[in-house]
């Protein structure tokens, strides 16, 4: 068994988010996902929008600069994640396909075993 992190990316500026029905639909999607894949789930959370993010950058001298906003500005931003356990990548991808991500998509990354 291996662990994978499913990173959920979404377009925060997508006009569909202004409709409360969208949020409700996505929330229902996550509930259904949790029910279907509960046995594989090891964790997961939704994140606040990137306008709540604070980034820290290290320069070569070791100095740390604090800035407002996401570390990398992209159209689709990280909006949440799931930590799952699966026998192989195909099984992980089959689970990841069920993650609701209407305005973006997901990235599946293997977790380095400790």
């Amino acid at each position: 068994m291996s662990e994978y992190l499913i990173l959920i990316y979404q377009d925060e500026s997508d006009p569909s988010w202004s409709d409360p029905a969208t949020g409700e639909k996505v929330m229902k999607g996550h509930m259904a996902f949790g029910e279907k894949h509960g046995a594989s789930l090891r964790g997961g959370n939704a994140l606040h929008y990137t306008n709540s993010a604070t980034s820290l950058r290290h320069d070569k001298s070791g100095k740390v600069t604090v800035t407002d906003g996401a570390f990398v500005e992209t159209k689709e931003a990280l909006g949440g994640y799931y930590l799952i356990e699966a026998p192989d990548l195909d099984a992980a991808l089959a689970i990841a396909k069920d993650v609701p991500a209407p305005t973006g998509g997901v990235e599946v990354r293997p977790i380095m075993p400790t």
Partner: protein
Amino acid sequence: MAEAHRNEWAYVLAATVRVTRDIDAAEECVQDAFARALTDWTANGIPIKPGAWLTTVARRLALDQQRRHATHARLLPLLVADVDDGPVDARSDDAGDDRLRLIFTCCHPALDLESQIALTLHFVCGLTTAEVAKAFLIKESAMAARLTRAKKKIAVSHIPYHVPSADELPDRIEAVLDVVHLVFTTGHTAPSGSSLVRDDLTSRALQLARMLRELLTSDPGVAGLLALILLSDARRTSRTSETGALVLLEDQDRSKWDHESILEGIGLVRESLTHRPPTRFSLMAAIAAVHAEAPSFSETDWGEIVSIYDLLLLTWPSPVVALNRAVAIGFAEGPLAGLSALDELSSDPFLAHYTYYESARADFFYRLGHCERAVASYELALLLTDNAVERSFLQQRLDDISSESAVKGAS
């Protein structure tokens, strides 16, 4: 030995991977087994079942290696396989499945397409890193780095060594067919370089398609792709002149076509078209079959070809298919109709930089007697290709037109 290498490599490697669960380690053992075969077979003669002999030796070497290295820390995790040990000798019943596992692992969509092609040529066809590098026209060190990166991804992300489940299978077969088709098209018209056809790649593609046909006998896409390769490759020797220059379909010596391949291809087209809806490769093969069956260029059933392109556009809408359809209309209904069909595609951003689009326009202009416009289009086409044979063909057309106009001017 070369024949054994070509025929048995994939089978022996795939069976050995099941022991090692590490493609690199398996490859080393298989190479070693082939080296031993060289001395053993020279001394004792070729065994009745060379594949079984090689597999037995390779798997024994793999087991020895595992015993020796049992205490070593591993750099990369082992492959996830659903079966980890099978009979150590003789071709087992699921030997076919073994090769399929290897193919599906190499052509996994989580790998980038170029790596899929490189892995397939390296592990399934048994090409060395240097040979694969040559196929891609890149340095061996760059290819070695690409293969290493791909193998690392297979290991750390646990791309499984198995045949995909039934619900994934159609998509995954499609991905494998894409890889084999790309190996073929790269060989059929090399995008750059000095020769038009790269026999090494077309014959590898044919080998892969035959292997898939053997392993996935009832798949219509596989039958279609094998048919397409057979029918296109049947024209190989007539596509270039003795000096290596490009010869158009219109001017090819049809008696030089490989009629045995054509017959086999047509049989496969018929079989694959009985499935509904027809697959992309079945339709492409059906078009090649219409050409192959025509006794001469002027007797080609262009109406039939246009209607197959119509179907192909439905299953696989792509600018190149649309371009070929427009050209077929030009032959079915005359150059003026062809030009107006091409004009409808003029806003396509891909075709705007596609040499065949301009050369098709040039040809229709020429057939209509608009020499100046033909020259302008040929000149544009010339700017858009790096293949030496295509370039010299286009230059030849330009020279022909200018000498014809000179003759007309003088008379």
